[in-house]
């Protein structure tokens, strides 16, 4: 009974990773499997300033958006924790960006951030906050891609943290209130420890999701201008598919594996403790 799942999932993945491993030590191109060239691909990358800029970009993209999403998700969860009139509508509105297909959301942002009568420039010009149209994607490419990522992913943190908040019994909070704990004390001593596993899980999912992210960066900036917003997936795509150097692309994609392993260890610790 495990066979369908094992073949479709593990079989595909294991086979793909083995093939990827081979490509990374070969000079494979489009349609050819290449010959063994040792670690030449990795050595080439190590000497490339583009590559290191991409590594830094990926870290900044993943780290910054995760931190902002965690903070906003916490605000969202705390604001939605107790019932109030209109809660359902607000919840649905905040959940919408997460369920809205990321390709389509990014298309909307592409034109919102445009300097040709873009939606954001239009408002800022009317409010006299800027004097002339600003090209967000070209001038602030990393800020642009992080913004869209945060827009899309905040609700996941909100939902995870909200579920954790709701599992705190009101008795616990009540007894703390009777004991004279202030709201601030309650927050740091009771609520924060309860939220920690959910927050950590969100962080693991977000960091890995962002590392493998492709749609937002590819559609918004294509990693440009001049590689200023290149991240690992768009870089691998460009080298393997646009330039046709499959071996180099595979070596780039494999750079994700160490991060993946670390995140996995964190996730297992997290689940093992409970």
């Amino acid at each position, binding site marked *: *009974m*495990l066979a*369908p*799942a094992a073949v*479709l*999932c*593990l079989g*595909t*993945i294991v*086979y*793909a*990773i083995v*093939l*990827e491993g081979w*490509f990374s030590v070969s000079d494979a191109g489009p*349609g050819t499997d290449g010959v063994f060239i040792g670690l030449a691909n990795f050595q080439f990358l190590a000497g490339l300033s583009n590559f290191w800029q991409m590594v830094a970009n990926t870290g900044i993209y993943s780290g910054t958006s995760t931190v902002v999403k965690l903070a906003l998700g916490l605000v969202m969860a705390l*604001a939605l924790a107790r019932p*109030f009139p209109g809660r359902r509508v607000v*919840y649905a*509105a*905040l*959940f*919408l*960006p997460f*369920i*809205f*297909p990321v*390709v*389509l*959301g990014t298309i*909307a942002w592409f*034109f*919102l951030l*445009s300097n*040709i*009568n*873009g939606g954001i420039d*239009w408002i800022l010009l009317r409010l006299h906050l800027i004097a002339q149209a600003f090209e967000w994607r070209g001038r602030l490419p990393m800020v642009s891609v992080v913004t869209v990522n945060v*827009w899309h992913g905040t609700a996941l943190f909100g*939902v*995870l943290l*909200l*579920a954790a908040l709701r*599992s705190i019994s009101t008795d616990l909070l009540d007894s703390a209130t009777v004991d004279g704990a202030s709201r601030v004390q309650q927050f740091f001593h009771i609520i924060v420890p309860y939220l920690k596993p959910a927050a950590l899980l969100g962080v693991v999912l977000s960091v890995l999701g962002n*590392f*493998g*992210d*492709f749609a937002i960066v*590819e*559609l918004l900036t294509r990693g440009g201008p001049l590689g200023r917003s290149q991240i*690992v*997936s768009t870089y691998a*795509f460009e080298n393997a598919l646009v330039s046709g150097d*499959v071996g180099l692309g*595979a070596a780039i*994609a494999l750079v994700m594996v160490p991060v*993946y392993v670390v*995140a*996995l260890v964190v996730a*297992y610790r997290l689940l093992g403790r409970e």
Partner: protein
Amino acid sequence: MKTLVGAARWALLTPMVVLSIAPIVYMGVTALKPAGTPLAVGNPWWPDHPTLGNFADLFGDPQFGHWVANTALVAGGTVLIGLLASILAGYALAYLDVPYGRSIVLVFFATYLLPQAVLFIPLLRVLSRLHLLNSPAALVLTYPSMVIPFGTWVVWSFLRRLPRDLIDSARTDGAGVYSTIVDILLPVLWPALATVGLFAITVVFNDYLYTSTFIQESSGQTIMGALGGLITADIDNPGKSFAAAMLAAAPLALLCAFFADAFARGLSTGIIEQ
């Protein structure tokens, strides 16, 4: 105190709600502008002459018909294969004493976290050898590998919490595996299955990497891949693509409206409340 909390809540929530829905509103507004209205002129946030013409155009457009049909085929296939494999694997892991069952669950979880950007280069090669590129089959074969780990995990953790008697009494009555699953488990399992099904649909609707790499012919493309590919060509006449985007997002938004709570619950039961 109470009004103060209320005011603080709305002070936080109002900007979050506005930012969450603004890109979607913008997309909807642009879709309502008459065909041929370039983005460079007019108020980006308001249609001066709203019309449903763009939507009407789409219904007679054979290209759009192809994309819808391809997306439906891919989504249907992914949901079906993902659900079947997940139910079988979840059942086996929960009730049949599979050797190393716990390790297998951990391996599934590991593949759930593996970024898809690690795999697309070798998968492209494999699909090309199987002559499956440019066909929806390429996606129906690869998307389940992203659904099954999560699906198995959700089904497994849901089944583990059912009273063991339910299965044991069915087995002593001589029910086979098939009738145990169909008659006894499916009726109680449906919230978990709804979660897995919805997750499968979000996988299909949020992917851009696989669909844009494995499908290069427009007629074989899914809606997401096709619209993503049109993005830069759209500046002079974006209405039709934006209308297509709104229509493409509609199924997911509707599903979300009905199942948001169930989805959120399933997400957290599957992951947090281990």
